[in-house]
């Protein structure tokens, strides 16, 4: 069974309705390590060796964060800057993350239809996530499309719970070792057939 690391970063988790529900459904699953970055590093002083050890022990890395100003919160970026070291994560000797799986789980206030060339946000979510995609590529990881909960402001609690169930089902699939080939043609992991059987 694949081991899953959820690197969660939210500067104000206590007032996020959507993430409260999402996190609640996945954090206690066996084989999942839920790592709350803002709680662990409130002063942004990241323990790099500990983070590396954690990465070593897992097969799937999920960057779970809200999409703020089309990117991740600052501590997430800080984590990348500090932990993904030269000749460890990338570079001639940087093989530590090779062949791990990696993707973003994001929440966004704006709905999915705003993220296109005709919408207010001009670009698609996948386009905004390009830096993450390239980071994963440079580190030799397999990058998956994001699991995205869009338009959170408009979602009812029942709809949120629906998304949360999808999230935990996704994690279940990943634990069983489903590969990228099955996701062909899906912009979001939310769209894959296995999560939309009913």
């Amino acid at each position, binding site marked *: 069974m694949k081991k899953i690391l959820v690197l969660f970063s*939210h*500067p*104000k*988790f*206590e*007032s*996020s*309705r*959507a993430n409260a529900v999402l996190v609640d459904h996945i954090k206690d699953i066996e084989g999942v390590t839920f790592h709350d970055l*803002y*709680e662990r590093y*409130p*002063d942004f002083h990241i323990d790099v060796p500990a983070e590396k050890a954690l990465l070593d022990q897992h097969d799937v890395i999920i960057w779970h964060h*809200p999409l*703020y100003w089309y990117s991740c*919160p600052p*501590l997430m970026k800080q984590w990348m800057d500090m932990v993904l070291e030269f000749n460890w994560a990338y570079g001639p000797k940087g093989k530590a993350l090779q062949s791990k799986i990696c993707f973003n789980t994001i929440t966004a*206030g704006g709905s999915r239809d705003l993220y296109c060339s005709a919408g207010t946000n001009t670009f698609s979510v996948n386009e905004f996530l390009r830096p993450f995609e390239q980071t994963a590529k440079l580190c030799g990881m397999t990058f998956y499309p994001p699991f995205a909960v869009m338009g*959170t*402001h*408009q979602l009812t609690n029942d709809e949120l719970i629906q998304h949360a169930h999808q999230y935990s089902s996704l994690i279940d699939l990943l634990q069983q070792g489903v590969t990228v080939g099955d996701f062909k043609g899906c912009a979001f992991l939310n769209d894959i057939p296995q999560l939309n059987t009913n």
Partner: protein
Amino acid sequence: MTGSILFQAIVFLAGAIICVSIAKRLGLSSVLGYLLAGVLIGPYVLGYIGEDGQDILHFAEFGVVVMLFLIGLEIEPKNFWKMRKTILGMGGIQVAGTMLLSYALFLFMGFEWKVSLVISMAVALSSTAIALQTIKEKGLMDTTFGSSSFSILLFQDIIVIFMLGAIPLLSNAEGGTTGGNHGEHANLLDTLPLGFQTLAIILSVVLIIVAGNYLIVPMLRKVANTGVRELLIAAALLIVFGISYLMEYVGLSPALGAFLGGVVLANSEFKHELESTLEPFKNLLLGLFFMAVGASINFVVIAKSPLTIGGVLLAIILLKALVLFITGHIFKLKLDQKLLLTFSLAQIGEFAFVLLSFAFNLNILNNDQMDMMLVITALTMTFTPIIGMLNERLILPRLGTKESIQRPMDHIAKSQKIILVGFGHFGSTVGRFLRSHGVEATILEQDSNRVDFLRKMGFEVYYGDATRIDLLESAGIAEAKILICAIDNPDVTREVAKLVKTKYPHVELMIRAQNRFDAYGLLNMGIENIYRESLETSLTLAKDVLSKMGFRKYTLNRQVKNFIKYDEETLRRLAKEPKDEKNYIFKARQELEQQEKYLNEDFKRGIVEYDKHWDSEAIRKTLLKTEDNM
């Protein structure tokens, strides 16, 4: 000589002001200034003060009582109990050793054994007034030397009771208490058999402890509630007078009683109030006392037999010094601490006046012996501060802990010089962190044990009092960029800050403050970089409490920063507010008033609602509202 009290007051006050300011200007202790003022206005130089010097001396001895009360206030009962071994050990060795040597000396000089014994008792006692005043003035109370001196002096205060009890037994003639020349008023102890005497002593100590807790503190609370400032002064004096009277009535040393009273009240909320109220009285009375000692030096007696007096004087100081040095050695003091102890306690103390006149009244001493010993006592009091000063200026810099040591030029030639005053708990943390960044601060430190240790660790350390501008100058204040003041004594801190600010305004001052009140004072002096030691630690604790209760750490971190900013702003605003006289009568009250103000400000500010960052709920509500309207 004139009988007018006003004129005498003018003479004393003017003498004190002139001589003490000159002494201070020369960097001498104020004690020496007062003593010289006394000599100057005394019968043999200017002659403003005549035979009444002795009476003034008796009156001014009350200053010693007030001083011991104040010292007691600073010692919590628990710490007092911890000191018992040093008090008994050091005090016992010092008194026994000195008595033995001086008894032998006076026997050898041909005095009768009873006379020699009485004189040796007087010689064994040192001057609490001179020694402690000097130690406190230099802020050395917390050093090994300071606490050793204090222990010895305290033991002497206790042993003097037994000496006063023993002297009548040596009386030649009619014996007992009846033989007085002009009769010391008989006290309770003399009329009781020995067993009851001990009982009376224990009872009166218990009485002080009980009265302190159940009578004095409630009384002070009532007095404080009236809000009349002078009533508190009256109450403070009443406490000291009351204890002294009780002690004299029972036949104990008033100073010892006052000390006990102080210890009992050390834990009460009125500690600081009593201290600030009695401090000026103590200082004036002690000043008067030192002047009276100076005035009582009988130059006619000296002129009659200068050689004998000079010889005995020298012998006494030497033998006292020797015993003190050995005592220090037995208790493993470092060389320079031993020397400080040796010279600070080498004088004969004010108790000698009491013991000698008591013995004189009982016809144990004759007139000549009495005169000679009084002169010698006063002379030792005058000379030891001078010797002490010579020791500090000439001997100590060479021996033991040197004021500074030469370091290779490349170390001194750092382009940005930082001076760190005080290397205690606070300063050491600052210094260690600076050093971990390769920044070697020049350290000024008062405790020689610490100085030696720091030098061994390779720090550049200057030993001594940071309020001395010459020491600051040799530490390189002129080319310093920043001076950090990390000492815990607010008065010394203020003095250092003022000194540096006026003489070297280019030096940036970064100052440790204990609390808001320190900070107010420093802010009003125009100092910007103030670090309240209680602020960040207490907030860190509060933050951790909230975190354990489930609040998010990062949010708490930001709130702590906000709180500090807000607290600093409030502090600066309230520091500017004109002080309302009525509300600022009592410091304890003042503190409560302040707390109230801050709590009210907090209330106005509310709980952390104003923080809307990353709060999707607010956006959501707005969005839903606009949708409804559409």
